[in-house]
């Protein structure tokens, strides 16, 4: 759905993106993470055909951003990190304007507005002015405006910034449901915890480059990540896991982060083998912070 090849983007005073290449499959949620100033927002703006590349190519749904920017705009939803709303308009009018401006047919607008409002949980506030909404509700309205035309691709820049825990959970549910309806989402953030619930792949960007050169699969239904902890340090821990045919993501003398089959008997066997080999296993469980672990296992390794 999204293809980026050798993308270079330059501001007059600095090069913001340096030969970025990536590919995002349809109907996935990809996290775009990295330190502040790494180039996340610039990359998103290039994906949104708001900034033309200095060199390289970006294609969205098969369309080149340089050649067909307006066609891409029609297929996109984008919520920037700093976005505004028309505070004097009601929620209904904000969504109606967004629907009109995306070229929806007149007879489809009312239905599209109602659907978008329902999706973002604003059906009961249609006559409230945007300026009267709380931050969380404004965020929902911003997303509602971005999805009212059922875009194929939705780009969100720091969507959960400033939201309370409940609003973040609602956002997570919303994004997952949007993916399930067929959208492809790219969500930028530098707060990994908020991406944990809904992202299946992660693109780490550092100093304008993709770390590792490609998206990293952080959630694999068949082979999730497991964290093993042993009470007494063992120098041969890594070698044992390797000999056992385990994919090791990270390991030291006390911990190992591995990807392993979800198959219960296979996991039970691995646990038995560890204990039989004298490892004092104090913990063996599916990792709950896979994104964070994947991020810190990659960051600082340098770009491809």
């Amino acid at each position, binding site marked *: 759905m999204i293809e980026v090849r050798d993308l270079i983007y330059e501001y007059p005073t600095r090069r913001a993106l340096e030969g970025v290449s990536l590919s995002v499959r349809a109907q996935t949620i990809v996290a775009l993470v990295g330190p502040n100033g790494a180039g996340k927002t610039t990359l998103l703006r290039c994906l949104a055909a708001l900034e033309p590349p*200095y060199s390289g190519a970006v294609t969205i749904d098969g369309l080149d951003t340089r050649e067909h920017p*307006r066609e891409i705009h029609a297929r996109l939803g984008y919520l920037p990190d700093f976005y505004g709303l028309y505070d004097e308009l009601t929620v209904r009018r904000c969504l109606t304007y967004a629907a009109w401006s995306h070229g929806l047919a007149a007879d489809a607008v009312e239905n599209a507005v109602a659907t978008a409002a329902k999706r973002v949980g604003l059906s009961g506030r249609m006559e409230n002015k945007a300026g009267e909404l709380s931050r969380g509700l404004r965020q929902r309205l911003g997303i509602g405006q971005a999805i009212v035309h059922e875009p194929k691709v939705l780009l969100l820049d720091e969507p959960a910034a400033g939201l309370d825990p409940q609003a973040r959970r609602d956002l997570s549910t919303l994004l997952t449901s949007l993916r399930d309806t067929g959208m492809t989402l790219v969500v930028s953030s530098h707060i990994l915890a908020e991406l944990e619930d809904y992202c299946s792949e992660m693109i780490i960007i550092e100093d304008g480059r993709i770390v590792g050169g490609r998206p990293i699969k952080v959630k694999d239904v068949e082979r999730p990540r497991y964290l093993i902890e042993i009470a007494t340090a063992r120098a041969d821990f890594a070698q044992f896991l390797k000999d056992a045919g385990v994919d090791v993501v990270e390991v030291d003398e006390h911990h190992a982060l591995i990807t392993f089959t979800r198959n219960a008997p296979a996991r039970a066997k691995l646990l038995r083998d560890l204990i039989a080999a004298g490892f004092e296993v104090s913990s063996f469980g599916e990792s709950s912070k896979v994104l964070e672990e994947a991020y810190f296992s990659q960051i600082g390794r340098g770009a491809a």
Partner: protein
Amino acid sequence: MGPEFRRNLWLELTTRRIVFMIGVLALVFFAAAVSGPSYTPYSAAETLYYLIVVIWGARSAGLSIVGEIRDHTWDLQRLSSIGAFEMVSGKLFGSTIYNWFGGAICLVVMLVYGFTHGTPGSAVLDLIYYVVVGLVAQASSLLASLIAIRRRSAHSRLDVFLYQFVGIVAALAVFYLWEAADPAGALLLGKKPTDFIPWWGAVVSARPFLLVSLVIFAAWVLTGCYREMRRELKMRNGPLVWLGFLAFIGLYVAGFDAWLPHDSNLPQWSVVALRLALATTAYGALTYVMVLLEPKDRVLYRWYGSQVVSGAVGRAFWSLQAWIMSYLATIIVALALVWWLLMRGAGIAYPVLAVAGLGFLTRDVAIFVFFAATRRRGDFAAIVSLLAFYVLIPAILNGIDLKSALPFFYPAPSNPIWLGPVVAWGEAIVATALAVSRVALAEKRTP
């Protein structure tokens, strides 16, 4: 009705505001009607029209995009399916709809007065003039704001005032031109109003000529808005429209040769030479205006270089900035003028002056590029430099009776005669080399 226009209707034309406008205008007209012969509803309507449509309307138009950027809603609009024309018309007429509502009331009052106190033809001409002056003011302000966005300028109140100021200046130009052709109107520069205008050897009636000119220039301003909007929406603009504008402005300005003083000692100064000189001057002026307005983006200049090196000259040409095209047009027409003068045996004084002028033009655009290469406010430094070259230093040289040094700063007759162009092109080469090396140095420093 486009979505942007409809959104503006929601925001601008609320019932409360409509009632307020009608109430205030009714009160003013009533006060003017009962206050005596020095004030009439017509004069009040005319004054209010300028206030509401020209001055306030220019501000509304200037704010129409700047306000969106300030409120972080501009990206939402840019990512819509709204076309450039629809966006321009929605912004221009939508953001000013309240001003036009008040202006329409004033126009009705003026039309009624015009029909009852003058001829219907004159009333209709006046109506067209008022609509055009409002449109030019608002479109000029919108265009100024669109150009400023391109330069990534700030969006402060002062900036909005500057866009409004551009609109008001454009309206003033229209106003004075119109007054010049008004047999009963005020005087332009102390001269009598003119009934006829000589243009391309023909003598045409002043009012229709100026009205058509105003409409055409308003159309060009709107075209400028449309093209800048296309750029904002990330659509590509080719060079053809600007080249078309250059052709138009060259032909339009060249027609005013009869307005130039003819030197009786120089019979060689043919009409063709005068017309070429006028076109050269117009193109030179446009070069200065556009090099000031357009961003001197070294990333773009490097891109030009890479395209030329890789043989994609056509691609580079298709993306040429307006100031570069204007500069090339100045060079071409000026060289045609020099060739024409030499062929006609007009002597070398004027050709030499023209060549020196081209050298100084080249120096000046290089100064703009030089200062813009690394400074955020480089244009200001360039303007100060040019003020020094054209005003301050010549004033000092005149004061100390060193007039022979004037050809070192701007086109002036020199002794020996070849000194002027040699100095001018020497400075041009040095300034260009400095600009290129500064751009290259800035590039090296880019991480």
